[in-house]
């Protein structure tokens, strides 16, 4: 079972539908208990960092997500779900994140329109399981006003150019995340989610 966390931040329909289309057993969960039985966890999300982090905590997700990550099972963060993995964000003050990845979330530079909204090209900087078969330069859909700056630049697998190179795909081992929305990114996004699905259910999974 793939768990999608519902902590009241943004719409889950598209990611849920996209994963179901890939033949996955998907469950949207609004409490952390079912996480223990999940093969993989997806944390989507839109909106402001502070209230989202507070809700994750209030609902008891924070510790369970950390435990899930420690267990080595696959994790995918999307958009705000990526940003929440980092130590902290400067969005509307200073807010503490999950600290799964080192680094901070900062506002996009004032030289560009904010939000960064629309289709931008991926610049792939190193291979990653998520981007297998995705061409360098492929377009994906972004909507965000803040971006993550990992403490260790080696965490970044792909960037997009928007007032500088911003982290578009980050991760390593069992934890991966995208600043863009694969579930809104047409055929390229579907490929990325299929990569996640294949990896999430393991190499021995039936070829549905």
């Amino acid at each position, binding site marked *: 079972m793939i768990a999608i966390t519902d902590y009241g931040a*943004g*719409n889950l329909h598209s990611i849920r539908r*996209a994963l179901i289309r890939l033949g996955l057993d998907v469950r949207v969960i609004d409490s952390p208990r079912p996480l223990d039985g999940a093969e993989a966890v997806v944390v989507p999300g*839109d909106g402001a960092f502070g209230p989202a982090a507070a809700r994750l905590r209030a609902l008891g997700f924070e510790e369970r997500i950390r435990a899930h990550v420690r267990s080595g099972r696959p994790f995918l963060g999307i958009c705000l779900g990526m940003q929440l993995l980092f130590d902290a964000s400067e969005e509307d003050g200073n807010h503490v994140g999950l600290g799964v990845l080192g680094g901070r979330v900062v506002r996009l530079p004032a030289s560009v329109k*904010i939000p*960064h909204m*629309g289709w931008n090209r991926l610049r792939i900087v190193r291979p990653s399981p998520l981007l297998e078969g995705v061409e360098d330069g492929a377009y994906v859909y972004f909507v965000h*006003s803040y971006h993550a700056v990992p403490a260790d630049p080696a965490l970044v697998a792909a960037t997009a150019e928007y007032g500088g190179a911003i982290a578009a795909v980050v991760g390593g081992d069992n934890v991966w995340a995208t600043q863009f929305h694969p*579930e809104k990114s047409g055929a390229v996004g579907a490929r990325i989610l299929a990569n996640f699905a294949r990896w999430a259910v393991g190499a021995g999974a039936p070829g549905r």
Partner: protein
Amino acid sequence: MLARRVVPCLDVASGRVVKGTSFVNLRDAGDPVELAVLYDREGADELVFLDIAASHEGRGIMEDVVRRTAEALTVPFTVGGGLRTVDDLRRMLRAGADKVAINTAAVQRPELIREAAARFGSQCIVVAIDAKRAAPARWEVWTHGGRTATGLDAVAWAKLAAALGAGELLVTSMDRDGREDGYDLALLRAVTRAVRVPVIASGGAGAPQHCVEAVREADADAVLVASLFHFRKASIAEVKSCMAAHGIPVRPVGPQPRAAPADGRSR
């Protein structure tokens, strides 16, 4: 580099797609969900649904359209028309809309923009502005589907809406809407110079060249197109290849081919 977006707009009434000329003379152009999926396949970067006959009875029908569209689409879509309260917005977002557009209700109570942005995030709050030329370089905001003059200056309102938390502005020229003789470039230029949020050009697209002008001459981030597409006078691919030929970055249509040419020629 960020691509400029091509956005088909479906005007919807009672669950069916219609397109009026300057907001009258409605013509039926089909099922919104079917059309949305078709446009997705043809390379639309996102879609806009405007419920032009929005009423309490119609709201349920629209929610159903939104739900079915969200199930089927692989690109984002915006829903607007008759949304008046934070709860109206919440219902559409929960039904699966990626963004919601507010117009009359925001003019009547600008704080709605701030409340909605605080609740759902700026990224999903679009303020739609219907503007009509009042003087050579002045445009007035109209509400209620273009029936009520407000006396508000469109550029000043655009600035205020962005300051209150709108994540995007959908700027429609009422003078040009349905006439298919090009966008109101002066209006768009005035707005894109005044704000630092994305602006969608709307009203007047009648040829691919008009979309080029909106981007090159008025710096629009996205172009809204309705009847040009609905009546198959041009395809999304034609519009995009025209834009690409003028050096505008666009997302190639269709499944992105391996080693795709950078100019968007993919038909």
